[in-house]
């Protein structure tokens, strides 16, 4: 499976470091970390589908939004306990993922990206018009039950969730299944030629991606306690997810995580200088330059640095 002892040491170190963090940093930093954790979950979810199989999804907010809206409506309007509403939300998101899968079986490349974008816009317009008494219409919903109180608890919850997703995805991608998914991204025909069902593999990638997106979306909305269609089904949100995955490095697990933390903290440090949407000007420019000149992401940079060090040691 390609597992090495130092992988586990690195994961262990990361987990221990992240769990010890609330002892040393301020609550403000912790709140930023919570956002970074959720963004990392979304970026991993995007990467499982788009980074590996090459089916670029521009509609990830669609999946996240379905998860968020389902649990928000269930708990707020029907008083369903969260222990039930979150699993239901994840299930509904997976069903929605299957609906997006259907066109993906026939179209690819640019057309697939566009149809997912259309799904996102469709949902954005629908939640505002259909049953505003349930969805909250244009204004969205507030006063949604929160799971935890205080920055530290929210941090522990989101960290546990993020690391759980990351480690399980990492293990999954080490299996032959993960290799097959990545192979679809390289050459779909040859995967089919070697006797594997690409339809089944794609379905698996969609369901896994939707599972993570729904899980992240549901927990995220119970952390925020509110949701708004403008913030959720928004190109800026989509942009942040995609750029986090690309910037860190696709087809890796640590890449989207690094990307998410890099992006969140960059945005946070820009806040005093540029308080509003102007932040995306600097943010986007950095993302564009990095993407164009370092398409494999920050992970590649780090790896190359390590290799150079190792070679230097031998010589």
């Amino acid at each position, binding site marked *: 499976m390609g597992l090495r002892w130092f992988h586990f040491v690195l994961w262990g170190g990361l987990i221990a470091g992240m769990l010890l963090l609330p002892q040393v940093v301020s609550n403000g930093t912790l709140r930023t970390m919570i956002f970074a954790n959720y963004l990392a979950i979304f970026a991993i979810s995007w990467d499982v589908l788009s980074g590996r199989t090459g089916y670029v999804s521009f509609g990830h907010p669609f999946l996240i939004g379905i998860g968020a809206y389902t649990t928000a409506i269930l708990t707020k309007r029907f008083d369903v306990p969260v222990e039930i509403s979150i699993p239901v939300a994840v299930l509904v998101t997976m069903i929605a993922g299957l609906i997006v899968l259907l066109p993906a079986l026939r179209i690819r490349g640019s057309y697939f990206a566009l149809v997912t*974008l259309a799904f996102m816009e469709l949902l954005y317009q629908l939640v505002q018009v259909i049953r505003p008494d349930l969805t909250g219409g244009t204004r969205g919903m507030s006063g949604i039950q929160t799971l935890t109180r205080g920055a530290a608890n929210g941090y522990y919850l989101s960290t546990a969730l993020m690391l759980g997703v990351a480690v399980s995805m990492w293990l999954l991608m080490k299996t032959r299944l993960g290799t097959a998914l990545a192979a679809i991204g390289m050459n779909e025909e040859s995967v089919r030629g070697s006797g594997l069902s690409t339809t089944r593999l794609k379905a698996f990638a969609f369901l896994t991606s939707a599972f993570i997106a729904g899980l992240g979306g549901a927990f995220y909305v119970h952390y925020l306690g509110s949701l708004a269609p403008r913030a959720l089904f928004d*190109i800026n949100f989509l942009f942040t997810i995609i750029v986090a995955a690309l910037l860190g490095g696709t087809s890796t697990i640590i890449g989207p995580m690094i990307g998410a933390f890099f992006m969140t903290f960059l945005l946070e440090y820009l806040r005093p200088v540029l308080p509003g949407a102007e932040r995306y000007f600097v943010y986007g420019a950095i993302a564009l330059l990095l993407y164009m000149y370092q398409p494999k992401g920050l992970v590649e940079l780090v790896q190359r640095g390590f290799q150079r060090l190792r070679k230097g040691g031998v010589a």
Partner: protein
Amino acid sequence: MLQILIQGLLLSGLYALIAMGFTLIFSIGRVLNLAYGAYLMVGGYMYFWVSQTLGMPKLMGVAVAVVLGVLMGVLKYRLIVKTLKGDHVAVEISTLILAVVIQAGIVLVFGDSSKILLPIVPGVINVAGASVTHNILIATLISWAVLLGLYAFVRLTHTGRAMQAVSMDAKGAAISGIDPDRINLITWGISGALGALGGVFFASYTQLSPSMWVAPLIISVAVVIVGGIGSIIGTLVVAHIVGFLEVIVVATLAPELRGVFTMLLIIGVLVTRPQGLFGREEL
């Protein structure tokens, strides 16, 4: 009824102009320029700045917008599309990022709030009981004039025929002595000009806001997908389908549902006929 017919025709003409610039790039460069909506936004804002903030003549405002559109198109081709060497997904992602950057740039310069554009030509005219503003009427007439001019350009001039050749087979065109790079550059310039001009009209039809680029981008996408790859006739027909669909939905169902049916149309056509309604046709 007549109101719907006239409104539909006017809106469709404008949509045809907007979608044409997007179709051109897709047909010749084979890439989707997701920053296309940003041309429209920049065109609209430039016109607003020159004619309403600086108080210069309106024609001057249109001219500045169009020149800037050409410049943006050419720069985008040189700096991004050519650098990425035909990697479609990379071009789409980077143009999407660019659109977000331009949107943020607009917020940086003009602020977050939306702005009302004064009508380019004030006044209202009564056409058989339906009231039509001069503004949208002129916009539609100019749109049609530009579209006809473009059609003539593509059919009759040497450069236009070279564009058709590149759209069919870039390698073959290169062998017969056409410089595809130059043709692409011209196409991106024309696309930028069409986008900026469409943006001025579109903004005077709705209003200026930093997120105004999404709706026309989606319309262009719908037109390209439903119309099939880069056919001028397909673009015209589908622009009318989308335009009429919107006018009818707004008039008979609810204004908020305006975009829903456009989106359903995209999804429906992509799922049932991925090659579009009109399939592949020469430019």
